[in-house]
C-alpha cells in the first residue's frame, strides 16, 4: 500500500517543531507500524535526510518503550496493543496517517517522536516498590497466603508497562491510571500493605509535582491502555489515599 505520513519533526527540546509530509510506497499490510517507520527512515537516510527519531526496544509489546499518537489515538487505532504490535492491515491503501509524539507538559519532547517519560520513574522512586531484605534469607513469597482474587487483581495492575498512553490520551494529561495501577499492585498484597500509607501519599504527591492534570473520569485511558488496566485501579488509589490520610 502507498501512504502519506504527516509526522511531527522537532530538532530538539528547545526548537519549535512542525508537521512534515512524507510518502511511503509498497508497504506490506503484514508489517508492523514500526517496520513501516523503518522503511521511511531507510528512505530518508538514502536521500541524505535526518531519519525520524522514535522510541522502541523489545518490539514485542511488553517493554513499554514505543509510543506515538497515531491518527488521534495513543498507539493507534487498534485495541490492547502497543505501536510495535500495531499492524499496517489496520490502514488502507492511500490513507493519510498523522503521527505525533505523546503530548503532556510532564512528557517534554526530546526529539521528533521521542518524549522524556522520566516523570514516571520519579513517581516510582517515590514509593512504587516494597522494601525487602534480599541478603539471602528472604522468605519464600509462596509461604504467605494470598487469595486467588487478590493475586489476580494485583497481577492485572502489575501488567502496566508504564508506556504513558494513559497520559497521552487523557484530555487532561492525567497520570492517574499509571499511578493507580502501581499503587494497586502493592496495596492488594500483604507484602505491600506494610508501607501502603507512605507509598500512596508520596506517589500522589510526586505525580502532582510533575505537572500531570487531574482525572475527570472520561475513561479514555482504560480504552487506549495496551494492557487493559482498569479504572478500578484509580478508585482503589483514591480509597488508599483517603485511608492513608486518616491514618496520618
Amino acid at each position, binding site marked *: 500500500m502507498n501512504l502519506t505520513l504527516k509526522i511531527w519533526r522537532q530538532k530538539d527540546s528547545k526548537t519549535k517543531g512542525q508537521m512534515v509530509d512524507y510518502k511511503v510506497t509498497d508497504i506490506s499490510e503484514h508489517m508492523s507500524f514500526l517496520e513501516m517507520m523503518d522503511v521511511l527512515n531507510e528512505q530518508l537516510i538514502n536521500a541524505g535526510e535526518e531519519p525520524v527519531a522514535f522510541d522502541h526496544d523489545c518490539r514485542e509489546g511488553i517493554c513499554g518503550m514505543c509510543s506515538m499518537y497515531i491518527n488521534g489515538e495513543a498507539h493507534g487505532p487498534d485495541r490492547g496493543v502497543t505501536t510495535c504490535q500495531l499492524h499496517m492491515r489496520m490502514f488502507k491503501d492511500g490513507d493519510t496517517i498523522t503521527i505525533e509524539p505523546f503530548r503532556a507538559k510532564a512528557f517534554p519532547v526530546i526529539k521528533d517522536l521521542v518524549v522524556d517519560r522520566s516523570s514516571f520513574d520519579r513517581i516510582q522512586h517515590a514509593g512504587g516498590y516494597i522494601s525487602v531484605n534480599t541478603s539471602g534469607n528472604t522468605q519464600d513469597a509462596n509461604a504467605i497466603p494470598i487469595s486467588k482474587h487478590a493475586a489476580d487483581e494485583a497481577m492485572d495492575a502489575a501488567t502496566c508497562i508504564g508506556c504513558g498512553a494513559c497520559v497521552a490520551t487523557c484530555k487532561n494529561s492525567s497520570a492517574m491510571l499509571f499511578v493507580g495501577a502501581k499503587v494497586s499492585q502493592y496495596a492488594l498484597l500483604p507484602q505491600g500493605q506494610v508501607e501502603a500509607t507512605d507509598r500512596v501519599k508520596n506517589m500522589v504527591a510526586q505525580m502532582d509535582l510533575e505537572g500531570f492534570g487531574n482525572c475527570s473520569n472520561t475513561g479514555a485511558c482504560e480504552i487506549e491502555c495496551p494492557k487493559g488496566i482498569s479504572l478500578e485501579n484509580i478508585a*482503589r488509589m*483514591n480509597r488508599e489515599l483517603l485511608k492513608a490520610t486518616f491514618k496520618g
Partner: protein
Amino acid sequence: MSRFFTSSIGRKYAMALSALFLMFFLLQHFAINILSVFSPNAFNEASHFMGTFWAVQYLLQPVLLFGVIYHFVMGFILEIKNRNARVVKYAKNNGAANSSWMSRNMIFSGLAILAFLVLHFIDFWIPEINTKYIQGDMSGLLADGEGYRYYEELTHKFVNPLRVGAYIVAFVFLSLHLMHGFSSAFQSSGVSSMRKEKLQKFGKAYAIIIPLGFILIALFHHFNH
C-alpha cells in the same frame, strides 16, 4: 488533612462530594416542584415549610450555596490546570474513539447550567430573599392576603415562552452533565466497580428522568396557565 484537600485526588473527592450533595438537592427540589402539577395546595405548603423552617434556611441553604459556588469555582480551576497540563495540543485527536461527548465537555454543560442558575436566581431566589429578609414578610401570603403566594409566583414565571425555552435548553444540558457526572462522582469517591455498574444504570435513569421531569413541569404550567 490540608495536604489531602490540595492534592489532585483530594480535589476529586471534594468535587464528587459537592456533586453528590447537589444531586440530592436536585431530587428534593424536583419532589416539591412536581407537587405543583398535582396539587397547588400541597406545593404551597411544602414551599412555605422549606422557605421558613430554620434548619433549611440557616443550615442547609448556606451549605447549598457553598456547594454550588465550590463546584463551579473548583470546576473552572481544574479546567485551567488540566488545559495547562498539555501545552502543545495534538494536530489530530480522536476523542470520540475512547470517551463520551458528555465526559469530554463537562465544562461546557457546566457553563450552560451556570448561565441558567443566574436566570433562576433572578427569577426566584433573589425575589424570595428580598421578600423575606429585606421586606421582612415571612408570612408567605399573597398581597391580598388570600392564601399562599408560591404557586402563583411559579405559574406566573412560565407564561413567557422564551423563559420556558431557556429552561428546556438548560435542562437538556443538565441531563448531559449528569450523564457523566453521576457515575463520575462515585468513581471519584472510590466506589468499587461492582457497585459502580449498578449505580451507572441508576445514574443514567436519574440523568434522564429528573431533567425531563423539570421540563414537563415547565411545559405543564406554560400550557395550563
